[in-house]
């Protein structure tokens, strides 16, 4: 009690109780835990050690860390982050710095002020998770974390060491749940500004799988083991046949004997495309791939904002794609292109190292001698793949230096990259310009949401050869070996024990469930993640409420908020209204009002009796009646309850007779 007599600077200066400190430690662990895989190990270690120390200190097992230890620690923490990233700003370094500093803050946190600031930092940390992932899973996890942080905030402000955990979490969850409707209103109606406002470093998320800018044997078969979604496609009309779904990605024209590379190419400035059919229109929702590739059906005829097309007809984004990207696209599936290819580039697409793969090169050369027409050479090779003992497998045997020779004449087992690579080399040896195109082939139709899912496991490689008067022609040697790969999809092409787990392979009920889940993710991406200024305008105009521009939105927002809070306020006001004054008080007030009209004002310092005496002392005509009224008033107020109604009645008649 003694400490309670001292003046204090602020309520927040009070020393927090034990359970609050434990709660804040747990709350920070919950908020930072999912980040441990994004943080350097030593940063995670600092988190664990400082939280452990604070908990032990809270239990009284160890003492406070002295300032002369803490200050150098903070300094070296900052240095450590700088040494790790060579910067202290940006997403990754910023997160590490925030984490380290927050951890050190725990050592000296004992007052309410400190704990509240720590809780705010935890709220802030939630936002950093969304810079790494915005999936439904992350959102759900962060929602739960929000409940934990809010429960911590309640614990701190409860000022009671005893905690009923269940009640606390229920209350916190209720607060969070109550916030949802208002959040939705704000989310829909707060006008979105197209960003960014200031330059941001476009950092890559960890562990993204996707197409690479080079191709060597084994690379795509690795990718194919991943069941992750590469992109989803909503077609405006019918989905084209499976065998037409070639999603064009990186084009590789340079070959060094074992690897295929992207050639440096200029931006295409004249696009000479001959088409015979109308364009296919669709919208792609591309998952982040950490690279520049924009996937589109072969052959794309539209540009995405912030992208360009190279001379080898590849859509390239100017920025790395580290966020979910949605774009509408048009493609022509039947086309003729590139008849006027430059000689320089054609020369490049004929090059190969003479010292590697001698058998393949001599086969190519002999084919060139045997056939006059280039089409015949191509047919001969495809026939060779089709009719000889070549196998399509995910697990080809390991290959040595002259990998194409070993594959074509030895193992004869390979995946799409083996067939595409060896085919392109054979063509070059036979004098036909050829290049390898990587991308995806096919896709899985989700009949729940009516869209196509293309996964990493749909990754594919094929070739393009250049023929006089026909330009670049797509040849897929894999189709010769395993037609079912192209017509039905990967799983049908592989033997049972190699089959990838896809939704189609499961039983119908479970499969439908998974399609619904994927559909949910697709809608999530479509409605939540991609809800930007354009989407907002489209959505609001579709509602037909007359909300067209941002001032309409602000108006609607203010109107909605005011009416909701107004309604709320009225309800609360009604439910918690002050007690209605008793009947005798109302009557007596009327008397006082009458008297005040006659110039007798009751002073605040006077009680009723003193006031009456003062009034009566003047020459007041009806002083006896007045005295009776006051007497009745006092009797009702302080006397027995049972006579009240009778006394009230006589009070009323007296007041009526009072002629003022």
């Amino acid at each position: 009690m003694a400490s309670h007599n001292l003046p204090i600077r602020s309520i927040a200066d009070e020393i927090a109780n034990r359970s609050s400190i434990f709660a804040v430690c747990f709350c920070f662990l919950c908020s930072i835990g999912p980040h441990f895989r994004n943080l350097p190990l030593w940063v995670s270690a600092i988190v664990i050690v400082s939280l452990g120390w604070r908990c032990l200190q809270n239990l009284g097992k160890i003492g406070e860390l002295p300032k002369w230890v803490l200050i150098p620690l903070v300094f070296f923490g900052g240095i450590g982050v700088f040494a790790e990233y060579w910067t202290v700003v940006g997403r990754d370094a910023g997160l590490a710095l925030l984490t380290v500093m927050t951890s050190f803050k725990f050592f000296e946190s004992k007052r309410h002020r400190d704990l509240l600031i720590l809780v705010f930092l935890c709220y802030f940390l939630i936002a950093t998770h969304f810079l790494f992932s915005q999936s439904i899973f992350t959102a759900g996890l962060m929602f739960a974390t929000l409940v934990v942080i809010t429960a911590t905030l309640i614990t701190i402000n409860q000022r009671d060491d005893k905690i009923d955990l269940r009640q606390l979490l229920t209350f916190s969850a209720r607060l969070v749940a109550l916030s949802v409707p208002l959040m939705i209103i704000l989310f829909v109606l707060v006008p979105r500004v197209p960003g960014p406002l200031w330059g941001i470093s476009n950092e890559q998320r960890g562990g993204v799988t996707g197409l690479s800018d080079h191709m060597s044997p084994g690379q795509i078969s690795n990718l194919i083991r991943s069941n992750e979604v590469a992109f989803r496609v909503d077609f405006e009309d019918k989905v084209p046949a499976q065998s037409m779904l070639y999603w064009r990605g990186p084009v590789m024209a340079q070959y060094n004997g074992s690897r295929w590379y992207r050639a440096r190419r200029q931006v295409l400035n004249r696009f000479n495309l001959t088409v015979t059919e109308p364009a296919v229109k669709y919208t792609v929702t591309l998952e982040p791939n950490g690279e520049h590739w924009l996937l589109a059906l072969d052959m794309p005829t539209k540009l995405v904002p912030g992208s360009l097309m190279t001379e080898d007809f590849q859509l390239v984004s100017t920025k790395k794609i580290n966020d979910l990207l949605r774009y509408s696209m048009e493609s022509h599936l039947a086309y003729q292109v590139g008849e006027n290819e430059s000689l320089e580039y054609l020369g490049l697409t004929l090059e190969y190292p003479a010292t590697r793969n001698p058998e393949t090169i001599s086969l190519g050369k002999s084919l060139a001698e045997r056939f006059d027409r280039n089409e015949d050479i191509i047919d001969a090779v495809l026939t060779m793949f089709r009719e000889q003992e070549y196998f399509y497998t995910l697990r080809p045997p390991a290959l040595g230096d002259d990998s194409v020779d070993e594959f074509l004449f030895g193992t004869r087992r390979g995946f799409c990259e083996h067939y595409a690579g060896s085919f392109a080399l054979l063509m070059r040896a036979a004098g036909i310009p050829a290049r390898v195109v990587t991308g995806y082939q096919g896709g899985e139709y989700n009949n729940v949401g009516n869209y196509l899912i293309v996964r990493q496991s749909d990754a594919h490689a094929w070739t393009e050869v250049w023929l006089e008067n026909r330009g670049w022609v797509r040849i897929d040697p894999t189709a010769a070996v395993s037609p079912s790969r192209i017509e039905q999809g990967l799983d049908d092409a592989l033997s049972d024990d190699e089959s990838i787990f896809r939704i189609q392979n499961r039983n119908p009920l479970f499969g439908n469930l998974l399609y619904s889940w994927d559909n949910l993710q697709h809608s999530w991406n479509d409605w939540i993640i991609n809800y930007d200024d354009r989407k907002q305008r489209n959505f609001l105009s579709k509602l037909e409420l007359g909300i067209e521009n941002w001032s309409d939105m602000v108006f609607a927002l203010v109107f909605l908020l005011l009416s909701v809070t107004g309604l709320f306020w009225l309800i609360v006001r009604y439910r918690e209204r002050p007690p209605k004054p008793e009947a005798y008080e109302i009557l007596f007030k009327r008397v006082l009002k009458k008297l005040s009209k006659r110039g007798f004002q009751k002073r605040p310092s006077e009680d009723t009796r003193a006031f009456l005496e003062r009034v009566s002392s003047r020459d007041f005509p009806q002083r006896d009646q007045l005295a009776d009224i006051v007497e009745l008033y006092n009797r009702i107020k302080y006397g027995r309850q049972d006579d009240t109604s009778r006394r009230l009645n006589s009070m009323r008649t007296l007041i009526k007779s009072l002629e003022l």
Partner: protein
Amino acid sequence: MFSVSLPGPVRRHFDNWFDNHNPPSPDAILLHNRRLYILPTRFGYLFAIMLLFLFFAAINYQNSMAFVLTFMLISLGIISLWHTHKNLLGINVSLQIPRPVFCGEYCEFKFEVSHANNSTRYAIGLQYADQAPVYVKLEPEGNTEARLKLPTAHRGQFKPMGITVFTRYPTGLFHAWGWLKFDLPILIYPRPAEKARLQQNLVEQYDGQTSTSTIEGDDFAGLREHRVGESLRHISWKAYAQGKGLLTKTFQGHARPSLWIDWNSLTEGSLEDKLSLMASLVLAAENEEQKYGLRLPGTTIEQDYGNAHKHACLQALAIFRQSDFNQELELENG
């Protein structure tokens, strides 16, 4: 809470409005809607700044989930505004009349905090000015006691302004409070004068009164039977221990002394100094168990002694020329 200075008429208007909404109560104050005030705390403002920062970050990164989080936290803030208000609404605070104390001592206020709701109220704080608050927790429909010790600076009627009942539960973003103004007759007695000055003045007082009183001597006269009503201090405990029964010591030739504590006999010092001195004389006389009376301009309390008499005298001193005293204060404060 408020440190804004308003122009005179506005200020008066505000004060009127404020007094109308917060009438002082003789016994209990029910915190209904009109008596409750709510403002963000410093942490509320900090939270708002953080949200602004978050909002711009969300725009910059075009991160939809960051928008969701920002809006979620804004909503949480608004919801907590309502909850903080609700936590205080309908709380009833009543005050027992505190015991009178001397100026400079702490006056202990004993409150009873109760409510009729079917919910638990956490962290209901009672605070006086800038002193550390006390917190109570109320069970559903429960009541509890809270004590505040208020420092006293002036004698007379004590009407402490700035006692509040407040809460920041559940989030600490908002501070809801109601003013506790009680219209109770709480008296603060004048601060007794310091001992050294007292001794000297006591002698002077006695010197002026030799005709009616003498100082108690040491001439022991003998023992006689104890009569009911006589002071226990004069009982010969030695004789009692020897089993002779209760005997009173008598002193030869000395009557029970009595004195007048007279305003007019004091010449030096200000009004407050004189009252302080008189208060300490009252205490000393009471301590010595002599009859004493009090003479103030306009008030006379006849000679007597005992607890009731002492308090009557001290009360008279406490309220003596309170209006002068207030004017003096106003002059001091400019």
